[in-house]
């Protein structure tokens, strides 16, 4: 087969993987049930493809925007041009690495678990061609961000520093970084799938191992998040580091690449020892990238041919289960699914992590002339952002009900029980983020602890109300069934209840600030907050009790 034929075939496999990445756990859900089945599924396939393309474009834009910001902020800081170039390239490469690993983790598991070669191998296509198709398909998954990084970054460098050798060195560095990112993503996905999804057993060690893999999975995501939040600080930090620890840094990736690009640009003025060290270490990373690429090709082809380990068999002594009340059954099921699904786990962990990151980047308790009687001005945005994340939970948790709906839909699960279970879990995450906020406040602004505790505690009633409103609205929108497809694909279903839930949560805060502005009395503000929160809570409870 020639390359164009293989490339055409790889598109078919790619479409299947994209579809599976959105619907893999939801086959048997509500797919053929709404409207004209055939049209509906064709639309879903198209919609999955569009969404996937959109994701790729968004990632490419992210790489460009955040990378560019870091890149040029290095130039803007008062730094030698040599160091600015080294810092900018190093920051840019770390962003490309995190972005690509993050995106890779989202998709590579679908590639690992999709058994894509199953329908290729019986066809009269040679194994060599099947391997090529799988590789091409893998490239298609990442094509837009890969090409965007390869084109934009060297061009931006070339324009900024007016150096063709420098731009070519940056091009090489980006390619090396992309190889590392894809290799890391595939390695983690493969390990995740074989150890977490397919690995059996029930020991504490297995649970710990699962937790470890889950953390490994989501850490790049939060690192990326931190990188985008700390971009400016990172460049400043690297300015200090590069000046004092230049020799050591030239040995470390991605700094070695940054120094190499800088050397290629300003080679006449460079310290020969730094030049020698950066060239030597970069050559080593190049060799490592070549090895990683070889490993990547082997692994991608291996995965395509179904070389993922089969699940383990464990002889159990006693066949026993521990059933509880229905709401607890739903809650435990959700937690178990989340403990094996990085996307759900990250949504559960997001409010807490967000609080931690924002409290260090945006929370300045002493700013704005705040006193212990009044909430500091930065508290409200922090609280609002955290709440935005908490209110994503109910739709996300409700979405898990579409998993295996063809069976679960036949179980005698009442709406009230379902809403109760989702509310309790969402509330637990809210309380955990509140607790983290209190600990941080205790460390950074002890004078505000009691105000925060009072405010957050009272506000809990309103949060419960918003969660219940959201789920009730969502279940009305859906009618009898939960929409198929994952949360991101069906975001338009969730956006309106999410906004309305958020408005419900904001009403008591609005009342608090209005009372504070009109009367300048903290007590009256709190009375308004307490009254509105409890009123909302009571209405929500009444709504819940009306459900069967």
């Amino acid at each position, binding site marked *: 087969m020639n390359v164009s034929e293989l490339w055409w075939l790889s598109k078919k496999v790619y479409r299947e993987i994209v579809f599976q990445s959105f619907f893999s756990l939801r086959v048997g859900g509500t797919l053929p049930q709404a*409207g004209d089945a055939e049209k509906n599924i064709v639309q879903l396939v198209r919609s999955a493809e569009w969404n996937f393309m959109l994701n790729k474009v968004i990632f490419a834009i992210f790489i460009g925007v955040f990378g560019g910001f870091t890149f040029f902020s290095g130039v803007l800081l008062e730094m030698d041009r040599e160091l600015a170039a080294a810092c900018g390239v190093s920051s840019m490469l770390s962003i490309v690495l995190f972005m690509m690993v993050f995106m890779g983790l989202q998709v590579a598991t679908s590639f690992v678990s999709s058994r894509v070669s199953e329908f290729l191998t019986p066809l009269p296509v040679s194994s060599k061609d099947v391997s090529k198709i799988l590789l091409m398909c893998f490239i298609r998954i990442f094509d837009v961000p890969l090409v965007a990084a390869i084109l934009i970054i060297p061009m931006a460098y070339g324009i900024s520093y007016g150096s063709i050798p420098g731009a070519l060195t940056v091009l090489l560095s980006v390619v090396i970084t992309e190889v590392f990112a894809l290799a890391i993503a595939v390695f983690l996905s493969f390990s995740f799938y074989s150890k977490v999804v397919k690995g059996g057993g029930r020991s504490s060690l297995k649970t710990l191992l699962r937790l470890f893999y889950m953390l490994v999975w989501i850490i790049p995501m939060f690192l990326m998040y931190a990188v985008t939040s700390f971009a400016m600080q990172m460049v400043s930090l690297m300015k200090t580091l590069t000046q004092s620890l230049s020799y050591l840094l030239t040995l470390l990736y991605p700094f070695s690449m940054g120094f190499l690009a800088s050397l290629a640009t300003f080679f006449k003025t460079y310290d020969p020892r730094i030049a020698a060290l950066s060239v030597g270490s970069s050559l080593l990373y190049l060799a490592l990238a070549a090895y990683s690429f070889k490993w990547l090709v082997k692994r991608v082809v291996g995965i395509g041919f179904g070389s993922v380990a089969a*699940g383990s068999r464990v002889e159990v002594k006693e*066949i*026993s*289960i521990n*059933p509880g009340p229905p709401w607890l059954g739903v809650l435990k099921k959700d937690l178990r699914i989340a403990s094996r699904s990085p996307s759900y786990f990250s949504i559960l962990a997001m409010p807490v992590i967000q609080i931690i990151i924002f409290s260090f980047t945006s929370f300045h308790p002493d700013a704005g002339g705040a006193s212990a009687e009044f909430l500091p001005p930065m508290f409200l945005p922090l609280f609002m952002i955290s709440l935005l994340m908490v209110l994503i939970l109910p739709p996300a948790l409700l979405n898990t009900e579409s998993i295996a709906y063809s069976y679960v839909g036949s179980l005698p699960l*009442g709406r009230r029980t379902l809403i109760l279970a989702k509310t309790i879990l969402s509330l637990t995450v809210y309380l955990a983020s509140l607790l983290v906020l209190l600990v941080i406040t205790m460390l950074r602004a002890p004078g505000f602890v009691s105000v925060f505790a009072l405010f957050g505690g009272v506000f809990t009633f309103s949060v419960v109300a918003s969660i219940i409103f959201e789920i009730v609205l969502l279940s009305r929108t859906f009618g009898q069934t939960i929409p198929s497809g994952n949360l991101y694909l069906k975001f338009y279903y969730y956006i309106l209840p999410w906004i309305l839930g958020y408005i419900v949560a904001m009403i008591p805060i609005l009342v608090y600030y209005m009372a504070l502005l009109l009367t300048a009395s903290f007590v009256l503000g709190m009375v308004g907050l307490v009254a509105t929160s409890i009123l909302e809570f009571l209405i929500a409870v009444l709504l819940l009790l009306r459900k069967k």
Partner: protein
Amino acid sequence: MLVDYDEHAPPVFVEGLVVKYGSFVAVDGVSFTVKPGEIYGLLGPNGAGKTSTLKVLTGLLKPASGRVEIFGRPLSDEVAVKSMMGYVPEEVILMDSLTPREFLEFVASIRRLKADMVHPRLEKLFSAFQLREYFDTPIAALSKGNKQKVAVVAALLHEPQLLILDEPLMGLDAFSSKILKELLTFHVSKGGAVIFSTHIMEVAERLCMRVGIINRGRMVGEGTVDGLRKLVKSAEGSLEEIFLKVTEQEAGVQEIVKALEA
């Protein structure tokens, strides 16, 4: 969960059932009744409307029109109706990331089963279906047949009065098929009822007390196998022959085979 129900009411009562997918009518005015102590087989070619009919009974699909009652209760009495039945779907897709232990714990919690009641039954069912070594293996790693067995165990766990099984023997090995068939016979001997769809005519012929044949969404024949023989005026024909006659596919088979051979 114990649910009060009318013992004299038929386990399944369906009258004028219509199911639509957009403009396509999948089930068109089907009526039938499943009596207590009866195994009722729903037969029909692919796409005839069997699965749609069974999905309506389990509450997975809303009918466009018609009357459906389970032990005298309307389907709108959702939780009570679902408590009385056990269901095995045609395409067994369970929660892949859970293990059978976790999945069954979830099912038992929803069905409000007590641990002391459920353990002996679970122990027996897991041993009977040779699933013990897979109790803590993620469902994603199980073979199709073993997933099917887990679904069957989940359907039998609460000893339901009514079993709704959509192609239950597909994917099961001979040993497990035999066990399931024996279990179904035992279940109806105690007064329970079973409705299942199948493509395997021998199974339907041997197991079912009555069968209903659906073709293009309509019930084209219903009764005992003997009764159907009379209907198609054939004294000795097998259920397969009766099926092909009733669904007007008998002549077509010969023509298609000839065309293929040519």
